[in-house]
């Protein structure tokens, strides 16, 4: 049974208030086509989760879709500088910026994936982050009585992951760095894939590298060529500098609306983030 649906339908599976895990890392393999559609559909109160986010988080903040961000790092890297919309929204109090170490996001996702409520984290020792956040606590290791920090599980309602190849049933293979995407696919209640290519599943059974995400964990698959653009997608394309600079130059939500409208036809038809 095919799980392939349209980008619009996929975005409708994500509800206001959902905890949303975003695949990829900084400007690499972020699920940008679906992120754009979420802004178009005017989603509200999304609680974003990512280790290191950039344009995806920044755009959702710009679009007013977000109430909190749990992450270790939100910024473009050196060349493209700061994530200004995220930053402003946190500074204005519109969004709660829940700071993690990237590793505590990983630990929190592992906890969800293992079905437990918390995970001990070795490294978080001296840090104001422990006191100001309710998702960190210090407890005793019951075997040694040493103190250890624990982080509360994060179980995303939905994880959105952009992959190079998926079959119609939802088996997905990622080429190049996996980042935290496999972990997201295990920790989340619902997994939505956007894929550069829909391929026959036989590719996965015959090849040396099987699918990284098995079909039975996946709710829906969207055909989305250039679905990570203007971010990079290994083996398919590098970043689109103009697309990033163009986004960064947008002054207000109206301009963002125009920008998203100009990409809408391509996103919906599967031409991706640049025409």
């Amino acid at each position, binding site marked *: 049974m095919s799980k392939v649906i349209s980008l619009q339908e996929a975005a409708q599976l994500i509800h206001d208030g959902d905890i949303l895990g975003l695949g990829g*890392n*900084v*400007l*690499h393999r972020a699920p940008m086509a679906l992120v754009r559609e979420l802004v178009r559909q005017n989603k509200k109160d999304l609680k974003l989760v990512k*280790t*290191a986010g950039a344009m995806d988080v920044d755009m959702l903040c710009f679009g007013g879709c977000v109430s909190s961000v749990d*992450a*270790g*790092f*939100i*910024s*473009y*890297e*050196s*060349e*493209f500088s*700061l*994530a200004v919309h*995220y*930053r402003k929204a*946190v*500074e204005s*109090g519109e969004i*709660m*910026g829940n*700071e*993690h*170490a*990237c*590793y*505590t996001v*990983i630990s929190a996702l592992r906890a969800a994936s293992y079905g437990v409520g918390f995970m001990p*984290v*070795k*490294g*978080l*020792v*001296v*840090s*104001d*982050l422990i006191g*100001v956040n309710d998702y960190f606590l210090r407890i005793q290791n019951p075997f040694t009585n040493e103190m250890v920090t624990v982080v509360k599980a994060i179980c995303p309602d939905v994880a959105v992951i952009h992959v190079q190849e998926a079959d119609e049933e939802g088996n997905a293979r990622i080429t*190049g*760095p*996996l*980042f*935290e995407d496999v*972990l997201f696919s295990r920790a989340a209640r619902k997994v939505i894939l956007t894929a550069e290519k829909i391929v026959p599943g036989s590719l996965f059974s015959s090849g040396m590298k099987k699918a990284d995400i098995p079909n039975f964990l996946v709710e829906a698959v969207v055909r989305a060529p250039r679905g990570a653009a203007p971010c*990079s997608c*290994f*083996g398919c394309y*590098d*970043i689109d*500098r103009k697309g990033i600079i163009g986004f960064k130059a947008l002054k207000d939500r109206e301009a963002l609306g125009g920008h998203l409208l100009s990409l809408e036809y391509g996103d919906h038809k599967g031409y991706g983030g640049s025409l």
Partner: protein
Amino acid sequence: MESKNRVCDTMVCAMARMIRDGDNVFHGVSSHMPMVAVLLAKAMHAPKAVHLNIPGGVDPVLRKLQKYTSAGPELLEGSKSYFPLMEVFDLSMRGGLDVAFLSGVQFDVWGNVNASVIGDYKKPKVRLPGGAGSAVLIPTAKRAIIWRTKHDQRTFVNQVDFITTRGNVDKIVTPLCIFKMENGEMVLDTIHETSSLEEVRENTGFPIKYSRIAYTPLPTKEELSALGRIDPGNYRNIEF
């Protein structure tokens, strides 16, 4: 005589020399200078250092660096094994990471690092990008090496606004000098030839302590030549 050495080269060479042969070394996002430093160390005195990074390529053979990222898939190509970010963290947690290169926005004399916020955490005056790995790597890596391309009284402060982390900071490399942590205090290690004790003092928010005045060794001809091969696009200078 004006020096022909650029500060970025002095800094990168100093960072490279802090890597010992055989060290397991990690750098993260927005980290062109450490990335180039690791590649330089491996090309010079530390061929057996192990280069770890976010995409997970162990000792990647880089055909080409990228200007916009130090976490791109090119860091996986050409490597023999895959050891991604979460595994690097685990490695550090269990005591197996020798060197972690990290940054931050504010540092104080006690080695506290702030990469989180200026002002109130819940409604900050300035929201910083976040510490990424710092909060867990600085306490667990055997040696955390900090680099920061700004050296002023807002960066090196008497007391940080917010303690993101404190731990095994070994050295702090700036455009003016190198600090080291000694008995829990940040003290001057060496001054770059392009700087002076005076300039360091004026730009630091706490009193400078030192046991002797030494200068940061200059990049050698071999190092500069290797840098030209490793980083022809001059991305090590991107933060300036």
